[in-house]
């Protein structure tokens, strides 16, 4: 048991020794291993000294003024008389042109032809649309329309509506009567219909009874008329007599009895005799008569009365006979047939009325339609007359326009013809040929650049792009130094500072005015800027870094540890005071003698451990 414990302790002891040995070995080599992985940096000490804040750049000499040689018309170049670099004088021939017509001349001729054709067309159109004929016809048509309109009957919409209402009412009545007729006819049909009896059957008896009744009624009516006429005569005579004596009129006992008898008759009759009934011939004649006539009239009344009574009796008998015949007739449908015939007659009469109303309505509607059509025709003819008048005026305007267009085309043709006559192109200014773009045998459009002539008397410029920071260090009017040109007579002056069109946000274009003996196209390196100044902290440009928080440098800080010195990159914010191509004077926490990191083998950040490069 103890042996096992001892073995265990030995094992543990060995393990502990190995563990510590491994830890020691790792510790021994730790710096070596770590330094292999650290970024290696190159440093440079912060110094003091002078900074000359110069801006340098290179540009090409170009003339300030250029003259561009162009063509007035599309022509073909026959030959080129100059080459680049030639000095030319005003009036010197630069190019000769071929004899062919220019495109502009051809186009101008075609334009004149086209304008002439258009003018001729307008002349024809104007003749065709002669104002008198067209307008006169339109006016005559308008007069005819007015005449037709005046002949129309004016019918209002209310009249048509009333006629339509009347027609509708009659149609309704007709339909109602037709329904009644159909109903009576249906009743007759349901009862078995009406069959004409044959021979002298019952129906002939009834018919004869009905005819007798009708005759009796006619006779009775005629008797009553006769009686009324007789009584009227009698009455008129009596009234005449009263009016003629002026002392009153009285009837004798017979007459009084007659009168009483007459009164009774009137009472029994129940049919008053109108006093306004015009007097008959007999009544007029009785004016001359006296009582004799009155007596005769009375007698006539009596006779008439008797006839009335007789006719009444005959009528009563006929009525009785008719009733008896009907009641005893075997054909009971006769009343239904009579009712149906009556309903049919009423229906036919109503139908005639409705047809009449429809005729009236159609007539009114037709009249109104004719009236409206004629009225619209008048309006249309008025519009046609207005259009005809306008057409005559428009035709006149078009003619004038075409005439003017023709005149302009002719003027342009004359101008083009003058230019087309030129056989060569001459220099307009003294200068040096900068470019010769045209070649012989090729046709060029109008305004195409054939050549460019530099104008030396306007001077030369050189321009180059710099950053905005660099541009802030220089000012217009600064005298610049030319570093790569042999001649000392050449001088450069900063003329203007303007945004660089290629990169307007970040760059500026410095334009220098060049004077002296300089060749156009030469490349000049120009230096311009402030004079030298003394600064306490100067660092290499390569050590300055930037981020969103501004410019900074990474300073190497040394840290002593039990395992040796450790170097840490520490951020230090700075502000640029002045700079040249290699160094920058800065302000901030930097001190003389601090080491700033200029380059590193890997990207490094603030607080990163770094390894110094072997020097």
């Amino acid at each position, binding site marked *: 048991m103890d042996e096992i414990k001892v073995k265990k302790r030995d094992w543990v002891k060995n393990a*502990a020794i190995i563990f510590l040995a491994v*830890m020691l070995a*790792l*510790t021994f080599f*730790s*710096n070596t291993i*770590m330094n292999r992985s650290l970024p290696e940096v190159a440093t440079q000490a912060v110094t003091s000294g002078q900074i000359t804040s110069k801006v340098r750049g290179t540009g090409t000499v170009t003339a300030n003024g250029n003259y561009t040689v162009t063509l007035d018309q599309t022509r073909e170049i026959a030959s080129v008389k100059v080459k680049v670099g030639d000095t030319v004088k005003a009036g010197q021939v630069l190019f000769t042109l071929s004899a062919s017509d220019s495109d502009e001349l051809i186009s101008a001729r075609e334009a004149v032809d086209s304008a002439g054709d258009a003018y001729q067309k307008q002349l024809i159109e104007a003749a065709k649309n002669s104002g008198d004929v067209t307008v006169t016809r339109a006016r005559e048509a308008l007069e005819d329309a007015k005449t037709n309109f005046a002949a129309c009957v004016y019918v209002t919409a209310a009249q048509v509506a009333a006629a339509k209402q009347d027609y509708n009412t009659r149609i309704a009545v007709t339909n109602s009567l037709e329904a009644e007729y159909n109903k009576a006819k249906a009743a007759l049909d349901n009862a078995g219909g009406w069959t004409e009896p044959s021979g002298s059957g019952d129906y002939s008896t009834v018919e004869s009874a009905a005819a007798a009744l009708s005759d009796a009624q006619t006779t009775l009516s005629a008797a009553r008329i006769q009686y009324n006429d007789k009584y009227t005569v009698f009455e008129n005579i009596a009234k005449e007599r009263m009016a003629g004596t002026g002392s009153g009129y009285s009837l004798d006992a017979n007459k009084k009895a007659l009168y009483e008898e007459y009164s009774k008759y009137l009472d029994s009759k129940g049919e008053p005799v109108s006093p306004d009934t015009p007097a008959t011939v007999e009544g007029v004649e009785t004016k001359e008569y006296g009582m004799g006539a009155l007596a005769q009239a009375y007698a006539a009344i009596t006779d008439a009365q008797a006839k009335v009574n007789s006719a009444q009796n005959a009528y009563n008998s006929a009525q009785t006979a008719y009733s008896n015949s009907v009641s005893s007739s075997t054909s009971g449908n006769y009343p239904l047939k009579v009712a149906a015939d009556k309903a049919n007659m009423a229906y036919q009469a109503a139908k005639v009325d409705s047809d009449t109303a429809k005729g009236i309505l159609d007539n009114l509607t037709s009249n109104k339609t004719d009236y409206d059509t004629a009225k619209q025709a008048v309006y249309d003819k008025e519009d046609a007359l207005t259009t005809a008048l306008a057409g005559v005026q428009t035709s006149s305007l078009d003619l004038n326009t075409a005439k003017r267009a023709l005149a302009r085309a002719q003027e342009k043709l004359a101008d083009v013809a003058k230019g087309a006559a030129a056989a060569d192109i001459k220099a307009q200014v003294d200068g040096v040929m900068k470019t010769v773009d045209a070649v012989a045998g090729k046709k060029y459009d109008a305004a195409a650049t054939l050549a460019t002539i530099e104008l030396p008397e306007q001077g030369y410029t050189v321009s180059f792009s710099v950053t905005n920071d660099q541009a802030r260090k220089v000012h217009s009017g600064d005298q610049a130094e030319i570093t790569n040109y042999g001649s000392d007579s050449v001088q450069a002056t900063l003329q203007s500072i303007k945004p660089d069109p290629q990169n307007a946000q970040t760059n500026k274009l410095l334009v220098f005015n060049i004077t002296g003996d300089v060749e156009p196209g030469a490349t000049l390196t120009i230096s311009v800027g402030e004079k030298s100044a003394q600064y306490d902290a100067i660092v290499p440009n390569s050590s300055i870094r930037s981020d969103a928080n501004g410019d900074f440098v990474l300073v190497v800080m040394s840290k002593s540890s*039990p395992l040796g010195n450790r170097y840490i990159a520490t951020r230090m914010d700075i502000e640029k005071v002045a700079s040249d191509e290699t160094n920058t004077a800065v302000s901030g926490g930097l001190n003389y003698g601090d080491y700033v990191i200029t380059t590193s083998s890997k990207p490094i950040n603030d607080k990163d451990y770094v390894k110094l490069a072997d020097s």
Partner: protein
Amino acid sequence: MRKKRYFGRFVMFLLCAAFAVAFLLPTVLTITNSFMTESEIKANYGPVFDKDSTSGYRSGTVTLKFIPDKVTFSQYINGLVRSPDYLLKFWNSVVLVVPIVIFQVAIASVAAYGFTRWRGKVRAFIFFFYVILMLMPYQVTLVPNFLVSKWLGILNTRWAIVLPGVFAPFSVFLLTKYMRRIPYSLIEAAKMEGAGEWYIFTRICMPQCRAATYSIAILVFIDYWNMVEQPLILLNNTDKQPLSIFLSQINTGEIGLAFAMATVYMIPSLLLFLHGEEYLVEGIANSGSVKG
């Protein structure tokens, strides 16, 4: 009857197994996670250590994961090979703890012998004072320690940790209790044979207390190997702070590295325990069972 007893044992076994798993879980998690990649660890414990949500996937919940997707030693290589910082901190721990253990055991042995050999009211008062000091939590004496260290001019030096550690009362108390179980007749016999106090202390008393001394050394080593408060307060210089400070401050970024270094950091304690396991049990057991 036998079946009932077996069932009771089985239940107890299950309970003990459950507690064992609960206690071992953090240690196992530390060891297994030390072999994971940093991205896998961040994915598992995203919400806990999510300081930089822009880099990589973050899990919505904490996932306790024991099996790595891909076993890697990159965390160990980063901590032990590529950077000397953690090795330096490891040796800082060693430099702090080893003197404390050695001198505390030495001083405690002498003190305990004194408390054992001489008796009286003064001894009793001093021993009582030791016991009172031992009962006080460390946080109570932290401020006086800081003030005294500053007065002595040892603040921000390793002496500020080592000196209070050397004179810790717990070892004296434990060793005193253990020495009192040595029969006094043995010492009397030695004296009669003409042995001096030093001889008695070194040749008779200390060999008897080997188990207690070993157990004190283990306990003190573990105690100071894991210390956090003392270096935080008394050692401002991070180059002198032990690795336990680094582990306690791991909450951002280097979680995998912390797992790896924690695993490395537990090795010395583990080895020391394995080496003196029997002494530790024996020493603690005998110290408590002896009357003073």
